């Protein structure tokens, strides 16, 4: 007894199970387990949406979304849905689930583009917090809207190309083809799908009694709620867990040029699983004047790329049309990578978003109503009018 006591005393303090270090360690482990559980829930939820949509629409998914076959309508749906939910990862994951359940990829592509636009409302709202200091507000509002202008320019370039040639659809199909074996989606080795199947099947059994349409709709609803909750809480946990790592990455990127900024923006977004977190983080950094707009711009571009990880992850385990689900997830990635390559790669396009954002920031700092009109106009009124017009045509 005496010997045991002495041995315990001899242990270094930080290794003793009762020290604060051990408590912090245990807490961190619990948080990581929660992250793993929530990601599992996210994948299950996307599977639920796919199954629910397939069950509710039968073979009529295309007819159900006939209103969105007009690409502008799809773009507006993606923009408004993301602006309301405040998470592009949630919307793209839902789209992946819907595509797996039968939504045509061609209808989903503009929705994904719209999700990119809609997600930038978050950092724009965050920048409103700097309203009381004129110069600070100009810098913060510019830092937020540079993301909007980049995403708008990206749509202006790629939507016509998609409508004319199906460019993204073809690239997405090619990339998905590399991972899907004879339309079986790596069935033999897809352990993710196998591990989520029991949960998805349990939910399916639970709603069997409601019939195809109601049961399917219930699955979709549960799936949407679960996706929203899992992404929300994963984001919160990862922010806490990864702040140190994010700090290291950003420290490393300082003074290393735009490519390093893009890479670190991508990495930080992958770590926190949210592009709006990364882009919103740029707002106070730019608002204080320590970081210039041209310095934070590459970080926001990286955020667009990093956010694609969620939909890709979700697409690995869906049931139904797995090839199409992977295709839309790869389209999301391709669209964002090509956007950066084309807009940032071409010198005459590179700083257009920066110039537009600087002008808007200056204008909005002189007349704050411009900021309000901009947010309402870009994210709600213009999309709403477009949706109304397209439904009439």
């Amino acid at each position: 007894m005496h010997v045991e006591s002495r041995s315990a005393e001899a242990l270094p303090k930080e290794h003793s199970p009762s020290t604060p270090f051990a408590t912090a360690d245990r807490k961190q482990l619990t948080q990581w387990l929660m992250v793993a559980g929530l990601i599992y829930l996210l994948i299950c939820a996307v599977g639920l949406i796919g199954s629910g949509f397939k069950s509710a629409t039968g073979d009529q998914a295309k007819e159900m979304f006939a209103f969105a076959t007009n690409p502008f309508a799809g773009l507006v749906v993606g923009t408004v849905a993301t602006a309301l939910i405040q998470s592009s990862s949630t919307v793209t994951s839902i789209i992946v689930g819907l595509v797996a359940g039968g939504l045509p990829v061609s209808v989903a592509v503009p929705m994904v583009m719209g999700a990119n636009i809609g997600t930038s409302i978050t950092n724009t709202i965050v920048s409103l917090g700097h309203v009381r200091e004129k110069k600070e507000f100009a810098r913060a509002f510019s830092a937020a809207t540079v993301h909007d202008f980049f995403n708008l320019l990206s749509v202006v370039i790629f939507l016509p190309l998609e409508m004319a040639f199906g460019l993204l659809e073809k690239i997405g199909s090619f990339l998905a083809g590399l991972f899907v074996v004879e339309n079986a989606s790596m069935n033999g080795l897809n352990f993710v799908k196998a591990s989520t199947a029991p949960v998805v099947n349990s939910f399916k059994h639970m709603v069997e009694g409601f019939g195809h349409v109601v049961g399917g709709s219930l699955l979709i609803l549960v799936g949407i709620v679960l996706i929203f909750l899992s992404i929300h809480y994963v984001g919160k946990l990862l922010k806490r867990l990864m702040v140190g790592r994010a700090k290291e990455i950003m420290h490393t990127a300082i003074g290393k040029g735009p490519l390093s900024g893009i890479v670190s923006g991508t990495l930080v977004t992958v770590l926190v699983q949210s592009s709006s977190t990364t882009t919103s983080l740029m707002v106070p950094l730019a608002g204080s004047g320590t970081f210039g707009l041209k310095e934070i711009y590459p970080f926001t571009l990286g955020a667009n790329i990093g956010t694609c990880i969620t939909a890709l992850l979700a697409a690995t385990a869906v049931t139904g049309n797995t090839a199409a689900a992977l295709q839309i997830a790869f389209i999301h990635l391709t669209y964002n990578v090509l956007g950066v390559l084309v807009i940032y790669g071409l010198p005459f396009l590179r700083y257009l978003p920066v110039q537009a954002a600087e002008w808007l920031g200056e204008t909005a700092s002189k007349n704050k109503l411009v900021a309000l009109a901009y947010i309402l106009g870009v994210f709600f009124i213009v999309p709403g009018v477009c949706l109304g017009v397209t439904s009439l045509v």
Partner: protein
Amino acid sequence: MSELQRLSLEKIRHLVAETEGTLGELKSELGRREAAAQDAELDHLEEHFKNAELSLGSIRDFISYLVEQYRSKH
């Protein structure tokens, strides 16, 4: 005749080289200080993460600011 016009070619070359050297030093010092300021700002990343969270408070503050401004003008 200005001061510059009286300088010899050699002297002008020397002054240009000296100015370029000083400019280079100033630029690198500026870069170093800017990077140091950015590093210091990133040390408060936890705080920035909190500030970067979307809250209805930002919208409320913004609207109340607009109302204050409107009232002060009318």
